């Protein structure tokens, strides 16, 4: 019985059903073509595929829904029973009891008392019944689909058109998924952020200058702060945003000159073979995972800046914005250089030839003709790079600070939006405390800021294309 309801058995059954449907439909169309003496509209294989699709696709959709719906429903019922069995338990303990119940039902642990044992047996029983019901339902659905398709198979039936229509619709669905993901991002962030803003006012969040959501985590104070749940911590995001901008600007200060001059060299000075060596080498920088840069920033660059600062008598924080921003700049160099290279090479050759023909030197051509012509595209590239820097996570998580200092001194430690999101959502926080919700408010802010930067980048760089087409 256990094997009969297992996923492996179900998979095998499904495959068998699919193959049987294919063969039945192919057999039927062959015999009908012979019997009626007409040609079939489509190739024989399309009838088989059509029947197989009708057998499998509805069942697959049902199985997916079942997978998401069944267990939560069962657990809700179990939780309700637990609530009546232990009427005095607070909600969070009830959750623990439920988790324990699941483990007992699965046979991982032994039941501590009779009530739990009985409940576990009930849960186990209902789970088994539901699993059996799932297998039977799916089989019936497959059977219905098979029969439906089987009786539609006829020489006049346009199986290929039906099949291609199905494919086209699923291709469309796949393309629409891109929209759905965006909607999913916006909706989920907005939903959680809305719950946050119902407790903390928007003005306090966007214009407050004090950020310390973690105060309630200080040892000993936990219980006291939980008692006044919601009032713990302060959520003014100005210092966090300022820190993000500081780190991003430092990164741009490193990346823009290096990236831009590399691009000028590769686009206008370098012989072809040199260009073919340099460009892949810069791409290597782009391929290194950010966690590696973070490791380098935290354990090599930050101590280096600190030592260097001590030499000249400066007190550099061991989590300075300079180290995080500098290393982030290195990460962004290839991004800027390859985008700028594209933009510079896209400037029409006629402009270069005109300037050179009038007697300008290479440098004059580049500085006074090519770069001004490429300017909108370059600005677009810088904006995209800025968006990258603002959204970058691992480097700052590993190398920047946690405390939100309201400062623009690059030698001090600052924190960023992404650092705070990671800080707030790692560890065993309850999911709907104000602290975790504030991470979603930061998340939607981050999403909007990067989105605006991307749109601005697209907008300015489109100007270039319009001008020279």
């Amino acid at each position, binding site marked *: 019985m256990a094997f009969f309801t297992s996923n492996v058995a179900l998979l095998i059954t499904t495959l068998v059903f699919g193959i049987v449907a294919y063969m039945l439909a192919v057999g039927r169309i062959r015999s009908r073509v012979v019997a009626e003496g007409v040609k079939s509209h489509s190739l024989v294989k399309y009838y088989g595929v059509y029947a197989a699709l009708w057998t499998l696709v509805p069942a697959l959709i049902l199985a997916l829904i079942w997978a998401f719906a069944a267990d939560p429903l069962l657990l809700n019922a179990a939780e309700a029973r637990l609530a009546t069995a232990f009427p005095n338990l607070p909600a969070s303990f009830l959750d623990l009891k439920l988790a324990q119940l699941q483990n007992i039902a699965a046979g991982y642990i032994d039941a501590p008392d009779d009530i739990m044992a009985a409940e576990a047996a009930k849960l186990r029983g209902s789970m088994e019944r539901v699993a059996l019901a799932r297998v039977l339902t799916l089989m019936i659905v497959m059977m219905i689909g098979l029969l439906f398709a089987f009786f539609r198979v006829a020489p006049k039936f346009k199986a290929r058109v039906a099949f291609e229509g199905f494919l086209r619709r699923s291709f469309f669905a796949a393309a629409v998924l891109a929209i759905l993901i*965006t909607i999913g991002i916006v909706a989920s962030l907005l939903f959680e952020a809305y719950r946050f803003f119902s407790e903390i006012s928007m003005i306090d969040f966007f214009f407050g200058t004090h950020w310390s959501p973690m105060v309630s985590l200080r040892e000993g104070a936990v219980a006291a702060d939980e008692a006044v749940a919601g009032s713990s911590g302060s959520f003014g995001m100005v210092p966090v945003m300022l820190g993000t901008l500081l780190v991003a600007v430092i990164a741009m200060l490193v990346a823009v000159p290096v990236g831009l001059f590399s691009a000028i060299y590769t686009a206008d000075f370098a012989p072809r073979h040199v260009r073919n060596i340099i460009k892949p*080498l810069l791409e290597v920088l782009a391929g290194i995972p950010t966690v590696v840069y*973070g490791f380098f920033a935290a354990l090599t660059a930050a101590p280096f800046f600190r030592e260097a600062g001590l030499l000249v008598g400066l007190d550099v924080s061991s989590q300075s914005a300079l180290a995080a921003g500098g290393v982030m700049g290195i990460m962004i160099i290839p991004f800027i250089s390859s985008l700028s290279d594209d933009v510079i090479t896209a400037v029409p050759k006629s402009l270069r030839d005109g*300037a050179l023909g009038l007697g300008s030197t*290479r440098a004059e051509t580049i500085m006074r003709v090519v770069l001004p012509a490429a300017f909108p595209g370059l600005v677009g590239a810088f904006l995209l790079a800025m968006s990258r820097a603002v959204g970058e996570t691992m480097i700052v998580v590993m190398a920047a600070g946690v405390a939100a200092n309201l400062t623009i001194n690059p030698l001090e430690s600052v924190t960023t939006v992404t650092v705070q999101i990671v800080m707030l959502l790692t560890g065993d926080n309850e999911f709907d405390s104000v602290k975790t919700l504030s991470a979603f408010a930061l998340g939607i802010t981050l999403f909007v800021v990067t989105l605006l930067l991307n749109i601005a980048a697209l907008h300015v760089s489109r100007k270039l294309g319009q001008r020279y087409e």
Partner: protein
Amino acid sequence: MNDHSNSVSSSPGASGLYSAPTDVRMAHIAAGLKKRRAASKRLRFYGIMAIVTAIGFLCILLTTIISNGYTALQQTEVAVVIEVPAGEILDDAGAIDAEKSRNFNWAGLVKRSFRKEFPEVTGMLEQRSLGELLSANAGYDLRLQIEDAGVVPTGPVTYWVKASDDVDMLMKGRMDRTIDEKMRRIKDDQLVWFDKTVAKDNIRLVFNSTFFTMADSREPESAGVLGAIVGSALALIVTVVLALPLAVMAAVYLEYFAPPGRLTDFIEVNVNNLAAVPSIVFGLLGLAVFLGFFGMPRSAPLVGGMVLALMTLPTIIIATRASIRAVPSSIRDAALGLGASPMQTALDHILPLAAPGILTGTIIGIAQALGETAPLIMIGMVAFIVDVPTSFTDPATALPVQIFIWSDSAERAFYERSSLAIMVLLLFLISMNLAAVMLRRKFEKKW
């Protein structure tokens, strides 16, 4: 832009020169020429300097990591003469009894045996700090060695067990023994015992196979990357299975079937924008939707793979569209002209020809996903997990997340190990990218 091109040829006072004789004009131009050519050379020099800087950073990064990490390929072991009390482990038939072996105090046995090498150490505290030279898992090491061998030797036998991470660092010269004792993790008396062990040749460096066969551990000497590699592999399987078909379908739709109009434009804008959304936002999506709404298990490679699939989707869509567009329209026209339906043309003729490009794009997208850390942290794959995951719903971690976890640890030995883990990660990335380049070279067609 006109004012710019004018300013190229106009230098101060140039207008007056038009009326001057030719040789005067030429002399004026020649006078400025040296300066202008110098400016040209300077710009070229800046460009070269910028590239040298960028590649210099790359070299510094790689040498730092390699010079820190290569020593983690070796592990220090200490020879201990141990007499295993056969009676306490064997059952009546003379075979090793699993139950008895599990309950036996292996750690105590190893420490007692090690102490016999130093009869001069008698105090309780001293004996304890002597024991700290060995790994906290030395007993477990010994148990595995004996259980693997299947027999309990009679009489004293020399076993090699792992040294503690501090001794390991000392042995590899990564600990400064000259600094003040209070600042050192190995104390003065421990140094004496260590030197004695070295003098007796009872300590050695061997290949650190644990690193490649184990999962995470609290003790650096017992920690490995296998668990993280398997976790990454499981997540990436989910990513490929989900992202590749969906991306190809979406790309075919956008290239072949999408009617020009607002909806199509909107889809394209979304695809391009998703490629630029910060990865941590995808992590938030996964946390809120997959974990919060659908109640999927935390820390599972399944969820990690799904989040990475959402991230990789735009990359593969863009690559697929590019390679579909690279197939010349003559192929399409020929297929349609011979009576193939648009769907047959796309599936039977265009896609097979575009397949190498799609594959290359997929490999590059997967390589990106392999290096991604932040979204996996969001969905809880950052936990401390000592078992190698065996299914898609087991709690697991991923290779880059393991690097993150270790780099956060205080022990110097974890620093070394995270450097080695980075080398492993980079090795995977390099081989994936090389595979992509070779595929492209092999199948690239000039139409």
